C-alpha cells in the first residue's frame, strides 16, 4: 500500500462528505447569527477568508495550528486505541510547564541539545500524566474519564503554583513564568521572518507536527504496537484471547497519547507562547484537540488538515472584530460543526427521508458480501 492510497483510504468518501457538510452547516448557522445581529455575512466571511489566505496570514494559521494538530493527534490516537483521552488538556499543561522549566535550568546548553531536551521533558511529563490515570484504571478500575478531568485541574493548579516559584517566575510585573530560554526557542530568525514577510511568531514547530503526524500514522498502521493497541481498542476480549496484554496496552496507549499532548504543550510555549501565564481558567488546547480529532476522523493526516482548519478559524476569528463582529462567532461555528459531526444520526435520518438510498446501500453491501 502506498502512502497516498492509505491517506485516501481512511478519509473514505462518505465520511469526508459528512465532515464537509458539517463544516458548511457550521458556517450557515454562523451566518444566521450574523443576520440576526444585522451584520454583513459577506463582509464577515470575506474578512475571515482574506485574513488567512495571504502569505503572512497563512503563516499565522500554521503557527496557531501546530499545537492543535499535535493535541489532535493525541486524542485521535486515544480514539483509535479505545481510550478516550479527555485528559489531553492536563497533559498539555504539564508538558508546556516541563518545557519551560527545563529551558530555564538548561539555558546555557546549546540549541541542538536544549530543544530535544525540552521536547523529551514535555513528552515525559505528559506521558506520566497519562500513565497515572491508566494505572488508576487498570489497577483499581477507576473510570478514566473522571480521573482525567480531575487530573486536568491538578495540572492547572500545579502549573499556576510552579509559575509562582521565585526561580521560575518572571522578574518583571507579569504574573507568568520567565520567558523560554533563547536556545529553546523554535522561532525563525528575525531577518528571515522580515525578508520573507511572515508572522513574527513563525517557527519550526510545524516540522515537528508533520513528523509527529507521519510517525503516529506509521505506528497505527504499520507496527505490531499499533496492531496490539487497535485490537484492544476494538475488542479487548478477542485481544486478550489472542494473547495481548490488555492492561499493558491501555497503559501504552495512554502514555503515547499523553506524550503527544505534552509535546503539543512544548511546541506551543517554545513557539508562539514564549512563557506560561498564571491563568484563572483552563486554556483549552487539549479540549480543542478533541474537536480536531473529531473533524479529522481520528486519522493522523485528517487531523493535520483539521488542525490547520481549526488554526485558520482561530486566527481568522481574531480579525473579525475589525468588521464589528464578535469573535465568539467562531465558537458558534466550531460548536455547530462538532455538533453535526457528533450526531451523524441526523444525517442518516435525512438520507432515509430522501429515499433511504445511502442506508440501503450500506445494508446492500453488507448483505452482498455474505
Amino acid at each position: 500500500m502506498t502512502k497516498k492510497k492509505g491517506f485516501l483510504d481512511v478519509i473514505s468518501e462518505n465520511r469526508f462528505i459528512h465532515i464537509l457538510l458539517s463544516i458548511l452547516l457550521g458556517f450557515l448557522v454562523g451566518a444566521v447569527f450574523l443576520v440576526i445581529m444585522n451584520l454583513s455575512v459577506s463582509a464577515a466571511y470575506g474578512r475571515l477568508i482574506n485574513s488567512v489566505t495571504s502569505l503572512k496570514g497563512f503563516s499565522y494559521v500554521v503557527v496557531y495550528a501546530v499545537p492543535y494538530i499535535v493535541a489532535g493527534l493525541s486524542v485521535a490516537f486515544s480514539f483509535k486505541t479505545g481510550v478516550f483521552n479527555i485528559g489531553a488538556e492536563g497533559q498539555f499543561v504539564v508538558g508546556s510547564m516541563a518545557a519551560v522549566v527545563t529551558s530555564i535550568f538548561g539555558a546555557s546548553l546549546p540549541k541542538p541539545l536544549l530543544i530535544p531536551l525540552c521536547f523529551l521533558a514535555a513528552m515525559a511529563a505528559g506521558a506520566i500524566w497519562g500513565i497515572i490515570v491508566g494505572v488508576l484504571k487498570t489497577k483499581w478500575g477507576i473510570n478514566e474519564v473522571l480521573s482525567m478531568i480531575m487530573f486536568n485541574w491538578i495540572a492547572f493548579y500545579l502549573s499556576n503554583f510552579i509559575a509562582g516559584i521565585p526561580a521560575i517566575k518572571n522578574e518583571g510585573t507579569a504574573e507568568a513564568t520567565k520567558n523560554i530560554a533563547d536556545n529553546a526557542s523554535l522561532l525563525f530568525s528575525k531577518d528571515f521572518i522580515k525578508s520573507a514577510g511572515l508572522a513574527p511568531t513563525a517557527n519550526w514547530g510545524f516540522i515537528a507536527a508533520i513528523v509527529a503526524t507521519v510517525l503516529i500514522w506509521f505506528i497505527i498502521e504499520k507496527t505490531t504496537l499499533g496492531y496490539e493497541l487497535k485490537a484492544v481498542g476494538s475488542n479487548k476480549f478477542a485481544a486478550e484471547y489472542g494473547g495481548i496484554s490488555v492492561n499493558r496496552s491501555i497503559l501504552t496507549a495512554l502514555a503515547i497519547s499523553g506524550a503527544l499532548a505534552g509535546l503539543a504543550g512544548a511546541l506551543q510555549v517554545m513557539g508562539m507562547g514564549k512563557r506560561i501565564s498564571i491563568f484563572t481558567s483552563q486554556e483549552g488546547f487539549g479540549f480543542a484537540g478533541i474537536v480536531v480529532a473529531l473533524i479529522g476522523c481520528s486519522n493522523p493526516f485528517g487531523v493535520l488538515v483539521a488542525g490547520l482548519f481549526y488554526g485558520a478559524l482561530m486566527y481568522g476569528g481574531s480579525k473579525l472584530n475589525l468588521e464589528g463582529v464578535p469573535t465568539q462567532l467562531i465558537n458558534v461555528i466550531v460548536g455547530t460543526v462538532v455538533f453535526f459531526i457528533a450526531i451523524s444520526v441526523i444525517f442518516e435520518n435525512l438520507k432515509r427521508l430522501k429515499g433511504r438510498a445511502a442506508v440501503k446501500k450500506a445494508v446492500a453491501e453488507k448483505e452482498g458480501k455474505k
Partner: protein
Amino acid sequence: MAKQYVDMNTPVIEMRNIVKRFGDFVANDGINLTVHKGEIHAILGENGAGKSTLMNQLYGLLKPTSGDILVNGKKIEMNNPRDAIDAGIGMVHQHFMLVQPFTVTENIVLGTEPTKGVKLDMATARKNVVEISERYGLSIDPDAKIEDISVGMQQRVEILKALYRGADILILDEPTSSLTPQEITELIAIMHNLVKDGKSIIIITHKLKEIKESADFCTIIRMGKYIDTVDVDKVDENDLASMMVGRKVTFKVDKPEQKPGEVVLDVKDLHCLDYRGIEIVKGLNLQVRRGEIVGIAGIDGNGQTELVEVITGLRKGTKGQVLVNGTDVFNKPPAFGFQHGVSSIPADRQKHGLVLDFSIEDNLILQNYEKDPFAKKRVLKRDSIFAHASESIEKYDIRPSGSEKRPAGTLSGGNQQKVIIAREVQNDKDLLIAVNPTRGLDVGAIEYVHKYIVDQRNKGKAVLLVSFELDEIMSLSDIIDVIFDGQIVASIPGKEANENDLGLMMAGGGKKK
C-alpha cells in the same frame, strides 16, 4: 409432522418471484414462498445461499428489486421493520440484538415498556416477562444481565422478545444453533404450541434433523435460486442435503484407528466460580492424550464453559492444576497457555474469536502478529500478511474469495468461523480446544470443520471438543466425558456411546466414575 394445525386455505405469507440484486450480485433470483396459517415452514440453504436476504425482505430490512410480498392476502410494501411488526411479523436474528448491560426483563420489554405515568413500571414488566416465559416454557432469570448469561440463555431472551411483541408470524433465523439437545426439544414443543394457537413459523436452518422433526414444509434455496418446496414427510435427510448443496454429502466422519500417545492436557481437581460467585466446577479431573479427541458432553450450565475458560486463561480458578505437556498453566494469562501449546476455537466467536473491525488478514495473525514472517523488528510486513490471508482463504474456503482486506464483521457466521479455524489449526499447537465449532454452520461447512479437527487428531495432536451437539460429540470423539454439576461423571469410549445413555448421564442419571 401431522400438519394437523395447517390451514391450507389460508395463506398468511406469499412471496412471489422475489428478485434481490446488489449491484451485479443476485442474492435472490425469483424465489417463491407460501406459508399458511398454523404452519411451520423451513427455509433450507447453505451459508450465503440467500436465506437471510429473503427473510430480511420479509422483515422490511431490505426492499426487493422486484416481486411482491403479500401478508394475509394483501400486498404490502415493507419499508422498515416497523411495517413488518405492524403486519404481525416478528423475527429472531441469528446474532443477538440485545443490550448487554441491561437485564433480561429490560431487553424483552425494550421499546414497549409498560409505564406508570411518565415512569417505567419495571415491576409490571418483570411480571409480564415471568408470565410469558412460563407460558412458553422458556425458563430465564428475569433479573440477570445479558452480559452475564450464556449464549443459550441469550437466545431464549431473543425468542421471548419476539413472543412478547405478540407476533402472529415468527421468523426464526437459526434458532437452535446454540441450544442444547434438551432445549431444542423444548423449542420444538414451543413451536408446536404456537402453531396450535394459529400462529405461523418460518425457520431458517440448515439442520436437517430439526426440519424433519419440526417442519411441515421446506423450501430449498441454492445460490440464490429457488430449488423446490417439499412436503417434509415425503423426503429424507439425504434428499434434503443433496438438494441443498447440489451434490451428495457424506455424514460419516472418516477416522482411522490409532493408539493415543502420552498425556498432553491433564486437569487435576479443578475448582472455579461462575459469574455469580457460585462454585460451578467442583473438583474436575480430565485427561487428553496425543492423537485422541476427547468430547465433553453436557447440558449448558454444568461447568463446561467455565472449564474451558480456566484452561485458556480467561477465567481464574480457585484451586487445582492444569498441566499442558507438564507445564502448569493454571491461572496464567492466555498468552502463557498459547506459548505452552494451547490453541482454541472459542464458543463466542464474535466476542473472543475475532476483532470484527479488523480485516480478515489481520484476524488471521491474531496470536502471531509479532512473529516472522508477519513482522520484522516490530514493523508489520503487509505483503506476507496478505499472502498468508490469500492462502488461508483459498485453503479453508472462506467466502467470498478476495476478502483479505474486508472487516471480519462483514462475513457470514459460517465464514467467520472458518477464519478462526484457519488461524487455530495453522497455529499447530499440541492441544486444540474446540467449543461448539460448528454452531451455525451448514452441512457443507460442518464437513470441512470436522475434517480439520480429525486431521489434527491424526497428526498426533490432542483435541478437546466441547459441544452441545450430541451427534457431533458422538461422531468425532474417541472418548466421551460426560460433565454434570461441575464434574466428569462418566468416561466412555466414543464407539460404545449411544444417545439415550448419554442423555441420561448428562441429566445426572449416570453413575459416578
